[in-house]
C-alpha cells in the first residue's frame, strides 16, 4: 500500500469515529499540555535565575587564587584564600600570584585581561555625614573598572587616589546608627559626587586606638550587574595596599607574597572553562561563575525532567486510553479486517493502518496539547512577570523578563513524542489485528 493511501485511509477511519477519537485525544491534550506548560515553567525559572543571579559579564571572568591547601575548594569571588597579600608565612610549595604569574596568565590564548585584586582587611568605618555604611572594599590593579566589563550608571568607572567608585546597591547599606525604634527609615542617600569618610583603626602595643582618615569623592556609581560588584567599593590597588600596610605595620611586596587574587577576563564566555582548566594546570586555584551557572542549570535540567515526568504521568493515562480505544475499534472492525485480508491486504498493511490510526490520535492530541500548553504558558507568563516585577520593585533586584518560556523545540518534541506514544499504545491491538486469521475475522459475530 502506498504511503499516501495509508494516510488517506487513516484520516477517513479517524473521521468516521469522531466522538471517540475526540474524547481519547482530549486525554492526550491534557498530558501533552501539562508537559509543555510544566517544562516551559522550569525553563522560564532557569532563565529567570540566570538573569537574576549573574550578570552575563561575570561568566567570562575567572577568579584565580594561589592553590592553598591540598584540596581545591570552591570559594565565592572576593573570598580570598587569605594570607597572600597580608605578608604572613607562605608555604614554599604554593605557586604565588606574583607579577610574573600575572604576565603568564595574560599570555594564555583568549585572555583579554588579568587584573590583580586585593581586599582591604584593615578595621574600617565608612561614613557619610551621619550615616554609617557597610561594604566590601577592593583595590584593583587597573585605572578603569571598564576592564572588568563594568559600566557606570552615574559618573565614571575610572579610578584615582582620591576617588572611589561604588556598586549599585552600596547606598542602600548606609544607615543612621542613631535611628530609634519606630522611627521611619530615611531613603538611601544619593552618594554620587559626595565625599565619604573612610576611617581605618588599629591599636598599638599599649592598646591605644590609632585612627587614620581618608576622604574620598564618589566619582562613579556602577550600573546594576547582579553580581558582587553591586555591593562593593573600588579603589586603586596601591591605595588599598598602603592602607593594609598601615594597618599591619609591615611592607607588602606582591612579588614575594603574591596577590590574594587575580581576575582573568576571557574574550568569550564559551572559552571560560577551557581557560579555567589551563589556569588550574598552571598550579593555581581558579573559579568561575560559570561553575555556579552550570550547577544552577543542572538543577533546572533535573527540575525540567521532574516536571516533564509529572506531565508524562497524564500522558501515560492518555496512552492507556488510546490502547483501549484501539482495542475496542479492532473488536468492532474484526470483519472489516477479515475483508481487508480477503481482498489482498498483507499483515503489514493492516498493522500500518492501525498503528497509523493510533499515531493519528497521538498526533491530534499532541497538536492540541502543544497549542493549549503554549497558550496557557503565555497567559501565565503575563501574570507572573507582572507579579514578579512588583516583587522586584518592592524588594530590590532585577525584574524578570520571562517567567514561563516555551522554546520552539518543546512543542515539536511533544508533538513527535505524543505521536510516538500513540503508536506505541496502538502496537499491541494493531499486532492482534494484523495477525488475525482471515477466516476467523470474517466469521466474527
Amino acid at each position, binding site marked *: *500500500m*502506498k504511503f499516501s*493511501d495509508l494516510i*488517506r*485511509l487513516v484520516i*477517513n*477511519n479517524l473521521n*468516521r469515529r469522531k466522538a471517540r477519537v475526540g474524547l481519547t485525544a482530549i486525554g492526550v491534550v491534557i498530558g501533552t499540555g501539562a508537559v509543555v506548560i510544566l517544562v516551559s515553567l522550569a525553563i522560564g525559572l532557569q532563565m529567570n535565575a540566570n538573569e537574576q543571579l549573574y550578570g552575563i559579564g561575570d561568566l567570562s571572568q575567572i577568579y584565580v587564587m594561589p592553590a592553598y591547601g591540598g584540596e581545591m575548594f570552591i570559594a565565592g569571588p572576593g573570598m580570598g584564600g587569605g594570607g597572600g597579600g597580608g605578608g604572613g608565612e607562605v608555604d614554599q610549595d604554593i605557586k604565588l600570584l606574583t607579577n610574573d604569574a600575572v604576565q603568564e596568565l595574560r599570555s594564555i590564548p583568549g585572555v583579554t585581561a588579568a587584573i590583580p585584586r586585593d581586599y582591604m582587611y584593615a578595621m574600617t568605618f565608612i561614613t557619610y555625614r551621619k550615616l554609617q555604611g557597610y561594604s566590601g572594599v577592593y583595590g584593583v590593579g587597573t585605572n578603569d573598572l571598564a576592564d572588568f566589563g563594568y559600566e557606570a550608571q552615574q559618573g565614571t568607572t575610572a579610578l584615582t587616589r582620591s576617588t572611589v567608585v561604588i556598586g549599585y546597591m552600596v547606598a542602600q547599606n548606609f544607615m543612621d546608627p542613631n535611628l530609634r525604634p519606630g522611627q521611619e527609615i530615611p531613603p538611601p542617600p544619593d552618594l554620587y559626587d559626595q565625599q565619604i569618610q573612610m576611617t581605618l583603626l588599629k591599636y598599638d602595643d599599649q592598646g591605644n586606638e590609632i585612627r587614620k582618615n581618608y576622604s574620598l569623592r564618589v566619582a562613579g556609581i556602577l550600573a546594576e550587574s547582579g553580581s558582587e560588584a553591586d555591593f562593593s567599593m573600588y579603589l586603586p590597588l596601591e591605595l588599598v595596599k598602603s592602607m593594609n600596610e598601615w594597618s599591619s605595620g609591615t611592607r607588602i611586596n606582591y612579588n614575594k607574597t603574591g596577590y590574594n587574587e587575580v581576575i582573568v577576563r576571557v574574550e568569550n564566555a564559551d572559552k571560560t572553562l577551557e581557560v579555567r582548566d589551563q589556569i588550574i594546570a598552571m598550579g593555581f586555584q581558579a573559579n568561575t561563575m560559570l561553575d555556579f551557572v552550570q550547577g544552577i542549570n543542572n538543577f533546572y535540567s533535573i527540575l525540567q525532567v521532574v516536571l516533564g515526568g509529572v506531565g508524562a504521568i497524564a500522558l501515560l493515562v492518555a496512552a492507556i486510553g488510546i490502547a483501549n480505544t484501539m482495542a475496542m475499534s479492532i473488536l468492532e472492525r474484526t*470483519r*472489516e479486517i*477479515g*475483508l*481487508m*485480508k*480477503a*481482498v*489482498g*491486504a*498483507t*499483515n*503489514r*498493511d493492516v498493522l500500518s493502518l492501525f498503528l497509523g490510526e493510533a499515531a493519528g490520535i497521538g498526533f491530534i492530541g499532541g497538536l492540541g496539547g502543544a497549542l493549549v500548553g503554549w497558550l496557557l504558558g503565555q497567559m501565565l507568563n503575563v501574570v507572573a512577570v507582572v507579579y514578579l516585577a512588583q516583587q522586584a520593585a518592592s524588594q530590590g533586584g532585577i525584574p524578570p523578563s520571562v517567567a514561563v518560556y516555551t522554546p520552539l523545540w518543546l512543542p515539536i518534541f511533544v508533538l513527535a513524542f505524543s505521536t510516538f506514544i500513540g503508536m506505541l499504545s496502538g502496537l499491541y491491538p494493531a499486532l492482534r489485528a494484523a495477525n488475525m*486469521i*482471515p*477466516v476467523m475475522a*470474517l466469521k466474527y459475530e
Partner: protein
Amino acid sequence: MTSPLIQVSGLKRHYEMGGTLVRALDGVDLEIAAHTFTVVMGPSGSGKSSLLYLLGGLDRPTAGEITVNGERLDQMDENALALFRRKTMGFIFQSFNLVASMSALENVAFPMQFAGVPPSQRNEKSKTLLGQVGLADRSHHKPSELSGGQQQRVAVARALVNDPMLIFADEPTGNLDSQSGVTVMQMLSDLHKSGRTVLVVTHDPRMTRFATNKIFLLDGKVVSEAEYQSATLEPLLGNVGG
C-alpha cells in the same frame, strides 16, 4: 491436456469446538478446471464453506495439499497468500461485508488501495464496474442506503476490481430475496461466460442451472450426486413413508 486450475488432495480441516473435535473436511480430493462454473452443494455443516475458505487461502488446512494455478497455497506464508489473493481471487460473501462508512464507489475501490493503484484509475475503474452491475446512479450511496440485492451487486463489482481469474462466492444469494438472488446468479454466470473460473458454495438448488461442474459434500467428504441425493432425500422420504 491442460492441468486443472485447482487441485486438492487429502485435504483435511479439523478444529476443536467446546472440547469436541470437528472434522469440517476429512480427506477431500478434487480438481477444478479453468473457465468452469463450479457449484459446491451440501447441507449445513457439510464443510462447503470450509472448503471455499481453504481454496481461497483464507484458512490453513490441517493436512493435505492445495494447488491453485500451479502454486501450493498450503506452503505459502501469510504475506505471499495475501499477494496471491490480491492478484488471483475475488470474494463474494453471504453478508456482503461492505464497509459501512464508505460509499458504494469507495467500497468497490477499496481492494485497489492495497494494490497501489493510483486514485484516478481506482475511481474510473470503480465507476465502470458499478455501471456494469447497474448501480452507476448509486455510487455515492452508503451500504445502509442500498437494498440487499444492490449491496451484493456492489460486492460483485468489488470482487472484480483486481481482474481476478477466480471468483469465490460463499452463499451469495443466502441473504437475498428470490428476484435479487436470480440477478446475482445471472451476474456470476456472466462472469463465467467472460472467461473467469467461478466457484460458488450454496445450498440454493437454483444455482445448479448455471453450473458446468458440481461438487457434493457430506460430512466433510466429497460424494457423488447419487449418494448426496440419497443421503439428503432419504430422511424426508422415510418420514413420508413412516
